[in-house]
């Protein structure tokens, strides 16, 4: 099955730990950064906790999700670590039948069955009804709002009826499998609304709400994580043993009732907290920590020292994209009109020397990316544009493009529009004569993303030196930029003219990498208010259509349309103490924020 079969994929930075031979016993420790320590153990995760990936890997150590992935470096569902088997779609893609594995059982002896999945979805519905922010994977109109009925048709089969036809790939990969995924919950034990209270009928929405409120309250109360008997009813490879509230470090022991395989061979899994990546590395070097959390690419140069200290260091990107989004509403210097012009976006794209960024800034720990679906890691949906970029680095092409559209290009100074108008060879509608090509570029500080300032600075330098485009850099914290330099947020209106480009980070893709809600008109994350009818249709196909290649078409279109400046897809660096062994795939999965600690062991 999945995890054991992967070997070193192309584009891997460094080398994976060797498998060795397993011994029994011992402790393996995993590092966390303060600020991304587990905040919730109850697997229905609210928005406020959702960007903290460790909450999920922490939860999944104890509770096996319906669908989990990826399979090593392959961006697909790994059925070996999922409760569900591959579902079938029927009735014009409106009925989904999900068969469950029969080998999982709860610590209280109950099997993990269809009711447990129904229980989870009922609770999710209750949570969303209370406040959409309670379920971080919620997208308006989609899961769970698109479910009309859900029923357990047999002990291990669940049937879901959808209100409208959905692309099966979309429903499986983006809705049933996603970060804050669907996790079957112990419906016979957790269906209570108070400690020792009566077991309630959770199919009654009122009860579901009560149960959700109760569990959610306990699930975010870190002080009782370690002691609450509810959380000991687990079906995952581990059971939480202790949780130290002061620094959120924790220990877990193998779950004797774990129905999957392999069963953990060592006796304790430990989560340790560090205030910085540097502190974590120091701990690794001194042997106090076994497995790091994903590190920034700026740590790439340290690979050699770490290796010298006897650690394995490897890096691989997560599926997703980084982009600096254009603000199509920024009227400062008519930037909205300029950026609406495809040629202007193309010119900017030509200025990105991604190869140099990867080499000089990412120190090799990244791959160039030119669209929402990167070339690495490879998915079945990667378009050819991802491999052969439509606008590779070429400043002279940028110059030529601008010149041919009526701009007076003055490298090193300020390029201005000399031929206003919307005809051919003219700047475009709404750009008066003399308009400077100039905008504010917002990026986040090095303390939050070490490369962000550097790539922003490199781009700004190039734009000015080569084409005379003036990029005014402005640093804002992630939270500030995300909440305010965002046309899709209510607070954004106040700041709409404060920014032209927002390089706040990027998005993680689901295994069906549609940009629904990111680039489609009205999408909740369409922060720059990009509007393109063609794209809207393509996204619609990806979500509601039936084509298995819809998402490739969408990605290919976006790579050419440049709705944002795509940035290199950076690697997540993982360092592992050589004493730890395991199948390569289990280590590769770490680069996608997936912990599969059951595969690891202490080498003999």
């Amino acid at each position, binding site marked *: 099955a999945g995890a054991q079969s992967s070997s070193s994929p192309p584009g891997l930075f460094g080398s994976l730990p060797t498998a060795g031979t397993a011994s029994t016993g011992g402790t393996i420790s995993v590092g966390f950064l303060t600020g991304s320590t587990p905040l919730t153990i109850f697997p229905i995760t609210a928005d406020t*906790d959702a960007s903290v990936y460790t909450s999920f890997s922490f939860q999944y150590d104890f509770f096996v999700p319906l669908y989990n992935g990826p399979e090593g470096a392959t961006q697909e569902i790994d059925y070996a670590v999922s409760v569900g088997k591959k579902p079938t779609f029927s009735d014009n893609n409106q009925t989904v039948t999900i068969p469950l594995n029969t080998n999982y059982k709860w610590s209280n002896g109950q099997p993990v069955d269809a009711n447990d999945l129904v229980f989870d979805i009922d609770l999710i519905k209750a949570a969303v009804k209370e406040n959409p922010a309670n379920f971080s994977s919620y997208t308006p109109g989609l899961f769970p709002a698109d479910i009309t009925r859900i029923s357990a048709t047999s002990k291990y089969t669940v049937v879901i009826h959808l209100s409208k036809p959905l692309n099966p790939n979309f429903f499986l990969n983006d809705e049933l499998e996603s970060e804050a995924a669907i996790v079957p919950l112990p419906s016979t034990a957790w269906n209570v609304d108070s400690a020792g209270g009566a077991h309630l009928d959770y199919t009654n929405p009122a009860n579901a709400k009560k149960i959700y409120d109760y569990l959610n309250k306990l699930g975010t109360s870190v002080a009782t994580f370690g002691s609450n008997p509810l959380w000991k009813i687990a079906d995952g490879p581990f059971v939480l043993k202790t949780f130290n509230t002061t620094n959120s470090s924790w220990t877990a022991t193998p779950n004797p009732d774990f129905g999957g395989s392999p069963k953990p061979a060592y006796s304790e899994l430990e989560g340790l907290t560090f205030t910085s990546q540097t502190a974590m590395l120091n701990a690794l070097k001194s042997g106090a920590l076994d497995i790091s959390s994903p590190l920034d690419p700026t740590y790439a140069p340290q690979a050699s020292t770490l290796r010298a200290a006897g650690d394995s260091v490897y890096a691989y990107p997560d599926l997703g994209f980084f982009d600096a989004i254009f603000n199509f509403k920024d009227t400062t210097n008519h930037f909205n009109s300029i950026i609406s012009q495809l040629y202007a976006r193309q010119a900017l794209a030509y200025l990105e020397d991604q190869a140099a960024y990867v080499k000089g800034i990412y120190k090799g720990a990244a791959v160039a990316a030119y669209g929402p679906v990167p070339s690495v890691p490879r998915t079945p949906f990667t378009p050819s544009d991802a491999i052969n970029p439509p606008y590779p680095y070429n400043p002279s092409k940028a110059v030529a493009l601008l010149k041919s559209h009526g701009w007076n290009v003055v490298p090193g100074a300020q390029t201005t529009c000399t031929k206003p108008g919307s005809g051919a060879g003219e700047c475009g509608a709404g750009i008066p004569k003399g308009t400077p090509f100039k905008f504010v570029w917002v990026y986040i500080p090095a303390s939050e993303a070490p490369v962000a300032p550097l790539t922003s600075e490199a781009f700004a330098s190039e734009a000015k030196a080569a084409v005379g485009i003036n990029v005014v850099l402005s640093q804002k914290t992630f939270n500030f930029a995300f909440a305010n330099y965002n046309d899709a947020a209510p607070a954004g209106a106040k700041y709409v003219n404060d920014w032209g480009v927002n390089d706040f980070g990027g998005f993680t893709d689901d295994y069906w990498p549609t940009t629904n809600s990111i680039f489609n008109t009205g999408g909740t994350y369409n922060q720059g208010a990009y509007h393109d009818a063609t794209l809207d249709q393509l996204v619609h196909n990806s979500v509601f259509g039936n084509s298995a290649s819809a998402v490739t078409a969408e990605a290919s279109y976006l790579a050419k349309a440049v709705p944002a400046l795509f940035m290199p897809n950076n690697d997540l660096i993982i360092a592992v103490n050589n004493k730890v062994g395991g199948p390569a795939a289990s280590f590769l999965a770490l680069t996608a924020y997936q912990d599969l600690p059951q595969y690891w062991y202490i080498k003999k």
Partner: protein
Amino acid sequence: MTGYIVRRCIAAVIIALGVAAVVYLLLNFTGGSPAAAALGNHYNKITAALWNKQHGYDKPLVVQIVDYVWNAIHLNFGYSYKQGQSVAALLNEDAGRTAYLSGAALVLALLIAMPLGIAQAVKRNSIGDYVATGVAFTLYSMPAFFLGLILIQFLALDLHVFPAFVGDNVTTTWQAVTHPLEMALPIVTLAALTVASFSRYMRSSALDALAQDYIRLARAKGLRERAVLTRHLLRNASLPMITLVGLSIPGLLAGNIITESLFNYPGLGLLFYDALQNLDYPILLAYTLIGGILTVTGNLIADIAVAVADPRIRLD
């Protein structure tokens, strides 16, 4: 005496209330929206208005300030939406460790600075004095993180004398106390921040005292030099230090932010630093407020201590 203390305390309370109001205003002015922070992706006009109403952010600023101060008096500093806990609980968790770190650093700084300052004053303009002055100035001019970095690089990573960071086994204050080796570098870093200014101050204060006639008189009585220093000089020269210690509290707290994040030590400074990255306003507010109150209290205690220790200060 009691009258003085009572009056001084009332003044401190008024200043502390002022601090709370100013801090609230300041953070409000910097334009953080707690609703945006709390609601995340689902932040929109309607949810925000609802949320603001629920949490009292729709009231006039003055009322908000009064409410905030009122709640702060009751040790209720609000709720951290990012961390999902009441701020008071978060602070409570970390306060002990930070107090230990700062306290130990302060004590260490005093233990070094007081004898050093006196020795420098007694042997002034000697080679030793120059060297000590030079070192003091260097330390005083060194950003704490730079010093910490050098210490980590040389003492921990190169020479392996101390651990480079505070390990996971130090989670309670008591553990911090019982792991002196792990705490050595953070304490030294933090202490170095203050030891320099303390010893400079002690030196000049000791120089002043040495020039006083009562020192000459003590010698004229036939006292040994050591007795002159311990019985007559020490107390008089140390009096100004009390005030300085009170004044050094903000510096220590600021140093905590640096030191704690540098050495992986979970304390208030780190809490603040994380909150800053997350724009976790309730924590920012509370920490700044506590910093202010500690400063006020520090000054208050220093004033009272000086009054107790210095018989010249008239208390009526």
